[in-house]
């Protein structure tokens, strides 16, 4: 590592002013980092990537570093490309409902800018401090995914730097655009294994005038299931439908509405009658809204399923002692297991019930011992095609090697 550091350091420094040696706290999921480069522009990222290519160095991109332990640890991390100084909102065209930002921009900063015009990017900040680029790379999504979907439904243009240093754009500045391949969608959720995202354009939505949360206790998975079905098949157009169920104690189902005052009041009234007399209404989001159920050191899982599978999935999470929080209205919930020893057996059962309902169970974040003991990603169809995509974008497998599915 030391010879690598000396020579590569010089080369990288000529590409980018801000280069330093990696520190222990830069480690990517326990894997030490050789050098940290903090480029300030897409062009500098391109220069850094060219140097890395010439030196055959592995590269791990980092936005704000809030989810570096997601996925598997990389096989190596010679260069960490830190995008935190690329933190500007480049353009907010309020009349066109679009925003363009650099990848290292904190989501909160972006929201503050567009919020001045009464607009918002409907991507929840599921981990405090998360960046635009990190949210894309991890495909993080929260309760509002029920309203307009996830990053793939909101990203309209993207700039990336390839493993070979080539800068490429796809999409554009308009929401409606079918010219060429939609490369942005390939980047979303790819954990930095295809290219380094440097800039992104999103469509925006208006901030609703009022918001309300209607919550009800649920005693068992069957009840949660029946109420969730009643809400999704109703015509109240919820902005979110969440379940929150600690490992011990009863669960809560919460429906969120946003819109015009009279409209929301009416929809809330309908929801209360659907959910039953003990439903309560709040003007503030409930505790834990838009956050994951796991604490540091616990194992976090993402469970997906078709809506008719909610009862079965919740039942298994109860059985295995997992805490659950997530979108009962779309079939994406997160589960937390506190004891590492429980994970392998619990994961098997959860994987089986999710698969039965056409979904999957993925380990999002976990202690190293758990990641070693289980199949983090689980079975992935079309893996061969995914490998071929990887081989085209990163033939030397230098970008975040090993973090993703099938060893990609």
């Amino acid at each position, binding site marked *: 590592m030391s010879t690598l550091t000396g020579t590569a350091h010089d080369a990288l420094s000529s590409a980018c002013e801000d280069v330093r040696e990696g520190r222990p706290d830069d480690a990517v999921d326990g894997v030490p980092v050789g050098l940290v480069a903090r480029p300030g522009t897409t062009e500098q990222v391109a220069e850094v990537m060219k140097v890395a290519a*010439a030196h055959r160095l592995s590269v791990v991109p980092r936005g704000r570093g809030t989810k570096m332990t997601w996925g598997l640890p990389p096989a190596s991390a010679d260069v960490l490309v830190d995008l935190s100084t690329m933190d500007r909102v480049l353009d907010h065209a309020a*009349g066109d409902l679009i925003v363009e930002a650099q990848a290292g921009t904190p989501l909160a900063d972006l929201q503050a800018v567009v919020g001045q015009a009464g607009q918002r990017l409907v991507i929840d900040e599921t981990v405090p401090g998360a960046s635009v680029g990190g949210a894309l790379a991890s495909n993080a999504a929260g309760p509002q995914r029920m309203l307009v979907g996830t990053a793939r439904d909101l990203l309209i243009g993207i700039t990336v730097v390839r493993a070979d240093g080539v800068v490429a754009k796809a999409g554009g*500045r*308009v929401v409606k655009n079918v010219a060429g391949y939609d490369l942005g969608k390939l980047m979303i959720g790819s954990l930095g294994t295809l290219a380094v995202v440097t800039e992104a354009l999103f469509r925006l939505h208006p901030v609703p*005038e009022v918001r309300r949360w209607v919550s009800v206790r649920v005693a068992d998975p069957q009840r949660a299931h029946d109420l969730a079905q009643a809400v999704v098949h109703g015509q109240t157009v919820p902005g979110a439908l969440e379940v929150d169920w600690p490992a011990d104690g009863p669960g809560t189902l919460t429906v969120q509405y946003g819109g015009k005052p009279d409209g929301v009041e009416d929809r809330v009234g309908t929801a209360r009658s659907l959910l039953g007399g003990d439903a309560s209404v709040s003007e503030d989001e409930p505790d834990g809204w838009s956050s994951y159920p796991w604490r540091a050191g616990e194992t976090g899982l993402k469970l997906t399923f078709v*809506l008719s599978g909610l009862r079965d999935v919740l039942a298994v999470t109860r059985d295995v002692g997992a805490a659950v929080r997530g979108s009962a209205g779309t079939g994406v919930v997160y589960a937390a297991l506190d004891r590492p020893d429980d994970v392998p057996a619990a994961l098997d059962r959860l994987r089986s019930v999710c698969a039965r309902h056409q979904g999957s169970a993925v380990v999002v974040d976990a202690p190293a011992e758990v990641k070693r003991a289980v199949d983090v990603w689980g079975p992935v*169809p079309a893996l061969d095609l995914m490998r071929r995509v990887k081989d085209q974008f990163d033939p030397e497998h230098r970008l975040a090697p090993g973090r993703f599915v099938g060893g990609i």
Partner: protein
Amino acid sequence: MVSDVQHAGRPSRAPGSDGALAAVTARARELIPAPGVIDDHAKLRTYECDGLAHYRVTPALVVIPEDAEQLAGVVRACAEHGVPFVARGSGTGLSGGALPHADGVLVVTSRMRAIREVRPEDQRAVVEPGVINLDVTRAATPHGYYYAPDPSSQQVCSIGGNVAENSGGAHCLKYGFTTNHVLGADLVTPQGELVQIGSAAPDAPGYDLLGAVVGSEGTLGVVTSATVRLVRLPEEVRTVLVGFESTDAAGAAVSAIIAAGILPAAIEMMDALAIEAAEAAVHCNYPAGAGAVLVIELDGAAVEVAEEYAEVERLCREAGSFEQRLATDPVDRALIWKGRKSAFAAVGRISPDYIVQDGVIPRTALPEVLKAIADLSGTSGVRVANVFHAGDGNLHPLVLFDESVEGAAEAAEEVSGAILDLCIEHGGSITGEHGVGMDKAKYMPKMYGADDLDTMQLVRCAFDPDGISNPGKIFPTPRLCGEVPGRRKGVHPLQEAGLAEAF
């Protein structure tokens, strides 16, 4: 306008020999019952074009498989023998995306028409590629659901074609495009393998291959089954027809509505010439003397919609509307939509020939771009009727001409092309919903740089390294997939500088 494009659509390398085609034909006959394999020249000519009739190429062979296994078998034979293939749904596309290949196989999905599952409890349907778009909604409506993407051709276009083109429609302003409503698919790869991409549940792990395939215009394989999202029917729908003196006034109303934080299901605009055509064709009784009309549709929970409607009504009035007609029941709403939906065909009433253009601009550039189009029309003498999805800036200028007048077709082509240049200048797109296909491949280098196109084609190389799946579409210059990207041929400057020698 009919031109022979035998030169077009050839793959990057020499297509298979006659022997190769004969081998694929023989294999197709083994796999597919007789009426589904067509090599008679007269019958082949039936398939020589899609909805863009001025490009015509007779395919070498047409196959109409009954299921995914038959289809995959034919594609496998094509791969084995290096024969190009083109998939076709209903053939209603407007960019020549399903234009056949002269030396290749046209794979028609019209016999794969089963709606396999309608599952309201999961808000999903599973359909085969030949299923007609509107039939998905028809199957879902008894359960209180519908399929949201609604291209104007929805009574005839197929889901497979919609997936290939990422079709939109009037209501995509609020509900999104095909790509937002297809969650999973069975894909026959250009090697003839049948793979599952995406899933009925959200967020399938791994790369979002489905996101790349939807809208790839048949260049990454053939979808043989799609799992689509069903959307709950809204409690209330209000459609309002609003007359304005000018497109500027109508445009101002659209801006005011968006600025007020209202997201209608649809906002459509037609200018005076388009209104004239619609009146001549379907007697839709739009406001007399209007320089522009807006069709605005609001949907959702009833009280919410009523509140939004009150605001829309006021904003239109403040922007200078002189007439507003509200329709709440399905019959009255259909009457309002009739004029808009018939607009393309209606132009035939006021002009013997016309080009339907499809471009996108940032919505706020609308007044400027409309003025520029009027100027183009004025200086060239070519009439242009404007119909567009005003909410998202998707223009459909109808460029009118008379083919019997010498030079008229060329003049119209020129104006049509200049409109796309305007879209690019204003940061928009050369196509919002009709696709690039054969028609607009030449414009791609105007919208994207060489590196952008090269990067897109990395995906092509991953899926279809031999370039046999709908070759010649989208990209004006195919990438040679044999080149390993990023490998340097000469000595790297850093090596020259002595920086990289340690490695």
